Structure formats: structure tokens, C-alpha cells
């Protein structure tokens, strides 16, 4: 390892940044102070999730107004929009592991596709006929191993992740095509089948949960989460630790409850032209489960703490005794495994796998979704929830422009512009602290 140059800290810049970067909940005692501190932080350029939420609302309003017959906000379109977005959301949550480290993983589109093909192939009754859960476990394990190999090359040989995963992009594109041709399916193994085992994969995306159970499940989640937040904050306040004011905790819980009720209410509207199609699609709990798991891992465990530490200052992490190479390798494995879930949802959406899967486009949308949601391209900052919000933005643009019968080229241009805006906000909010894109480190 090269000896890092000795850079004296720049106290003036730090002082100037201080006002803007202190999270408002840490210095504010009352709700009013909190709001003022938050406004100060916004003016200072630290943006949080506000721009993406505002952007989402804007997208909804604009597309509702311009969509033919105002179908954008119809229940069937909103559910469809969520299903389209879910793939971007999960892939963005995958990419978040690499981005927090200040790295990037360009391979996850095709690597995840390999995982999806493995699962789709393994459940086929005419060939292997594996139970759906075993097929999924095998697929995700294969993805994790492939990711760990890439991570090992990046950390042990010191090659930039950009280059290693660019090679992986090509390699896994080839591997996917080979895997597709296995078995008697002419390269199109599909999930439309009367076999109930196969139908489990087919229904991962759009299969519905009974409306009543949807309500109950939502209630359990909201009450459980609300109780955790409320009692956790109350305990910290009693102990004299840093905690938001009770009004703010209540507001957050209220917003979560409203979101839950709105989602279930929309999903429970009958969205079939003939017959009945109502209830929350399975993809919603799947996305929430991934979100919950990765949020807990990143924000509540030692492992997650080390991921942020390495993204912030790899040398400091190393001197704190952290095994940087191991943590980074595991992160690439988790990234690839999550990508496997994402493309499996995609396979469920299109009802099988084929060589039409655009792994390159998927990975670019994944990076775009994460960054639009608020994850930094420069390392050290990012959350799983950013991937979910950014995925909704991309899904919204995609869906809204599709309703306008706009060509795919226009959709690309608009999505690219939105990404450029998000990256610009990210770069501006760092104001001179810009380092690089994982190309120069380690």
C-alpha cells in the first residue's frame, strides 16, 4: 500500500460546512427548531430525500395532467408502475453497497440475469424440476459467489472496480446466453405453466395477496414499526441521549401509516377490465423485505458501520483494525445477490427469460435510481431507501412517457437528464470535497 500523502485538515472549510452539515435533529430541541434547522441545511446544499420526494410528486402531477384520459393515477396503472419500478428499486439497493464504498458495479445487470436464468431453468418440470425455493437459493448463491470473486479480484489485485465489473459485464452477458440455451427451450425458458411450483416464480411480481390479508399485514407492519420508533425515541429522550422531539416521531409514524393505507387502498381497488383483480401484489412485501434487511444491515450492524467507514476513509478504517478487503468483498457478494433478486422479479414480470434482457440498461438505471434517490457517487453516503425512491422516479418517468406513446429514445434522453441533475446536486452538495469514483483509491 502506498503511503498516503499527509494532508493537513482545512479548518476554515470545515467551519463553513458546519452549519449546513449537522443533521438538524441533532441540535434542535423542539419541532419549530427542527424545521428551521432543516431549512438551514437545505439552503446549505445538504439535500436528504426532499428533492426526490418533490420530484416524485411533480412527476405524478405532470403525467396525470398530460396522460391520455388521465389514466396515470388509475389504480391499475399505479400498480403496474410499482411493478416496473420494483426491478429498478432492488437493483439500485444492490448498487448501493458498491456506491457507499466509493466503488461501482457495472456487472449486476447481466450477473443478476444469470441468476434469474438459473432459477427459471431449475424449476422447469420437463428438465430439473427443482422446488421453487431451492431454485431461488441456488440462483442467489451463484450470484453471491460470482460477486465475491469480482470483489476478491478488486481487493486482492487492487484493480479498480470499474474495470473488473466492466469485464464482468461482458463475461456474464456471455454466460447468460449460454445458460439460456440449456434444455429444450430454444433459449426462451418461461414461467407460464400450469405447474404450481413454477407458478410461484411467475406470481412473485404480480400475484396478489387477498385484500383482507393485505390490510392486516399492512396494519401489523405499521403498528410494529411505529411502536419500535416511538418507544426507541422515548427511551433515548429519557436517557438524555440525542433524539428527535416527540412531535417529529409522531409525524414520521403518521406518514408511514398514511403511505401504508394509501398503497393498500389503491391495490385493493379492482384493476381488471373483466372479472376481479385486487389485492397487494407480492412484489410489495418482497421489496419491503429487501429494504428492511439492507437497512438493518447497513445502519444497525457492525458490518454496515464498516462499509460506511471504508467509504468515508478507507485508510482510517484500516488503522481502526477493520479488515477492509474482507468487508469490500462481502459487499460485492451482497450487491450481486441482491441483483439476482432484482432480475428474478424482472423474469417474473415478463414471464420468463430470453436474450432480450438488456443488462447494460438495467445497471445504468440501477445506478441512476440510487443516485437520484440521494446516494452519493463519491462514497460514504447512501441508504437502501434511496434506491426505492429513485426506482420510483425512474419507473414513473418510464411509465408516464410510455403512456404518451413516446419512443424509447425519448425515454432514454429524459432519464439521462434526470440522472445528470441528480449527480449535479450530489456534486454541488459536496462543494470541493470531490474525490473520485473509486478509480483512484486502494
Amino acid at each position, binding site marked *: 500500500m502506498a503511503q498516503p500523502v499527509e494532508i493537513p485538515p482545512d479548518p476554515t472549510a470545515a467551519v463553513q460546512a458546519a452549519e449546513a*452539515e449537522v443533521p438538524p435533529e441533532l441540535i434542535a430541541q423542539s419541532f419549530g427548531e427542527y424545521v428551521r434547522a432543516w431549512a438551514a441545511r437545505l439552503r446549505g446544499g445538504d439535500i436528504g430525500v426532499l428533492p426526490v420526494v418533490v420530484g416524485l410528486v411533480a412527476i405524478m402531477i405532470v403525467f396525470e395532467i398530460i396522460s391520455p384520459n388521465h389514466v396515470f393515477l388509475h389504480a391499475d396503472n399505479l400498480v403496474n408502475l410499482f411493478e416496473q419500478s420494483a426491478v429498478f428499486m432492488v437493483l439500485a439497493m444492490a448498487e448501493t453497497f458498491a456506491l457507499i464504498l466509493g466503488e461501482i458495479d457495472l456487472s449486476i445487470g447481466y450477473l443478476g440475469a444469470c441468476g434469474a436464468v438459473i432459477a427459471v431453468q431449475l424449476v422447469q418440470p420437463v428438465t430439473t424440476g427443482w422446488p421453487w425455493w431451492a431454485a431461488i437459493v441456488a440462483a442467489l448463491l451463484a450470484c453471491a459467489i460470482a460477486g465475491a470473486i469480482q470483489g476478491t479480484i478488486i481487493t486482492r489485485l487492487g484493480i479498480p472496480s470499474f474495470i473488473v465489473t466492466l469485464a464482468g459485464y461482458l463475461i456474464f452477458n456471455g454466460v447468460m446466453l449460454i445458460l439460456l440455451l440449456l434444455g429444450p427451450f430454444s433459449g426462451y425458458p418461461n414461467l407460464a405453466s400450469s405447474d404450481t411450483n413454477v407458478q410461484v416464480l411467475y406470481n412473485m411480481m404480480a400475484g396478489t395477496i387477498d385484500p383482507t390479508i393485505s390490510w392486516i399485514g399492512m396494519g401489523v407492519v405499521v403498528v410494529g414499526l411505529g411502536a419500535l420508533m416511538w418507544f426507541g425515541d422515548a427511551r433515548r429522550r429519557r436517557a438524555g441521549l440525542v433524539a428527535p422531539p416527540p412531535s417529529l416521531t409522531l409525524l414520521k409514524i403518521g406518514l408511514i401509516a398514511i403511505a401504508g393505507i394509501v398503497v393498500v387502498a389503491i391495490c385493493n381497488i379492482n384493476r381488471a377490465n373483466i372479472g376481479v383483480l385486487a389485492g397487494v401484489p407480492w412484489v410489495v412485501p418482497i421489496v419491503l423485505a429487501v429494504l428492511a434487511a439492507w437497512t438493518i444491515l447497513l445502519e444497525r450492524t*457492525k458490518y454496515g458501520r464498516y462499509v*460506511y467507514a471504508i467509504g468515508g*476513509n478507507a485508510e*482510517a*478504517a484500516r488503522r481502526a483494525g477493520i479488515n477492509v478487503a474482507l468487508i469490500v468483498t462481502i459487499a460485492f457478494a451482497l450487491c450481486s445477490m441482491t441483483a439476482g433478486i432484482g432480475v428474478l422479479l424482472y423474469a417474473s414480470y415478463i414471464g420468463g427469460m430470453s436474450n432480450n434482457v438488456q443488462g447494460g440498461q438495467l445497471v445504468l438505471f440501477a445506478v441512476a435510481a440510487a443516485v437520484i434517490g440521494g446516494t452519493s457517487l463519491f462514497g460514504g453516503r447512501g441508504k437502501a431507501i434511496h434506491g426505492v425512491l429513485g426506482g420510483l422516479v425512474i419507473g414513473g418517468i418510464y411509465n408516464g412517457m410510455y403512456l404518451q406513446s413516446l419512443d424509447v429514445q425519448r425515454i432514454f434522453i429524459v432519464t439521462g437528464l434526470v440522472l445528470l441533475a441528480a449527480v449535479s446536486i450530489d456534486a454541488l452538495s459536496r462543494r470541493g470535497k470531490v474525490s473520485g469514483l473509486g478509480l483512484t483509491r486502494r
Partner: protein
Amino acid sequence: MPPCNVRGGIFFLGSKMTKMAQVAEPLLKVRGVDKHFGAVQALYGVDLDLPAGKVTALCGDNGAGKSVFTKCISGVYQPDHGEVFWDGQPVHIHNTRDASRLGIETVYQDLALCDNLDIVQNMFLGRERLSRYLLDEDDMERAAAETLASLKVTTVRSIRQPVASLSGGQRQSVAISKAVMWNSKLVIMDEPTAALGVVQTRQVLDLMKRLRDRGLAVMVISHNLNDVFEVADRIAILYLGRMVIQDDASKFDRQRVVEYMTTGGKGMKAAAN
């Protein structure tokens, strides 16, 4: 310091004498440390004693080898030759973990903290407390707050602010407090006041004195002779990789320190002769 082999002495002397020898033993004793990088010899047979309850200032011109020496005893580098005794026992420090296990904590001149983590997270980095497999944030926040308060590091607005938002002096204070929280016995600081303003330097110097008063051994590298004479009980001077003198601070004045730093004491000897 008599150059006798104390361990040999323990072997042959009676129990009463053994105790006395142990009391006189400095917390960390370094003997004959060499270190080279390729063709560059950075350290030549360096000896140094760091007694508990004393601030030892390590002085020297740029490139004298101060940072390299620091890294040799904090486990970042391995010396080529030489011995290190901790409480009189020979030890081998292979990495930074070995050093922290002994109770050696280093505040590096560069790259000490993660900007994106808050004060509590930085103070516990690598040694997080857990409850049921998850991070015990409440416990860590309480312990960090207690440590900062006991060291009178009270200028930070909230210990949950990211260290990127701290001033240079506050950052150094956090880095130093981190060392104390781990019940360290020896704290090494490489130019902790470089790039700090007057008030912030004051904070850091006061903090060093508090560590000494708690009975810790402190080694500080500094270019600033004002700082050195303000806090140091002992002064050791490196010149081109060689330890040219180490003695009580009272035996030095500014001119003598500068002389040793710039000429290795050749001028002094000439004058004495």
C-alpha cells in the same frame, strides 16, 4: 538512563531490587530501532524511553524520521532491527491491533477520522458495542459523552454530528479522546497542532496535560517550540534518523533544541570543547 540490561538484572538480583527496577522502568522502552525503505535508511539504532505520567516531545527537522518512528511503535511499520519493551517485557508489535491491545493509541497526523461518521461512531470505530447482534448505540453514545465530558471537550454542539462538520481542533480533540476512552496507557500524537489556530491549539495542549495528569504516557511530535516548551516534561530530538539527545525539558532552552534539530548537536559539542 543507564544502558544496563534490566531483565538480566532481574534475573540475578533479590526480590526487593526487582521491585525497584520495575518502578524505575519506563512504560515503553525502545532500543536500537532501524528502519529502511529501499535505499533510504530512515532510522538508525533509535533509543527512546517513554515514562508514564510524562509528556515526551519528539522533535526534529522535516524528514528526520519522526513519523516513521511513530509508525514503528504503533504497528503500522515493522522495524528492521531493534527491541521494544512494554512495562519491562519484550514485545513484538506486528500491527495496529497488537498496539491497541497493549494500550498504545496513536493520533495520526493524517487520516485519523471518517468524515461521514459522527463523533460517537468514530470514537468506537473498530470496537463497537453490541446488544443482541445489533449496534448498541445508546450505550456507545453514553460512554462517548462521559469521556468527552471528563476531558472537558465541551465545545461540540452534538456528539451525533458528523466529524466533517467539526473544526480542526475539535477533530483533534475527538481523535485524542478516542484514545483515552480505550483505557490506553500510551498516547502518541503526530503533529496534533499543525494547521490549528491559537484557540484550537490551546484546547489540544490542555487536553494533553489532562492525559498526563491521569498518569498516561504521552508522546507528541511537534515543530512548534512554543507548544513543546509548554507541555513537554521530556524532550527527545531526532536528527537524520538518529536520536541525538533525550533529557528532561528543564535541561533545554530554545536555542539548544534548535541547534540539535538543525545540526544534530555538532555545534554544541564544538562549543563545549
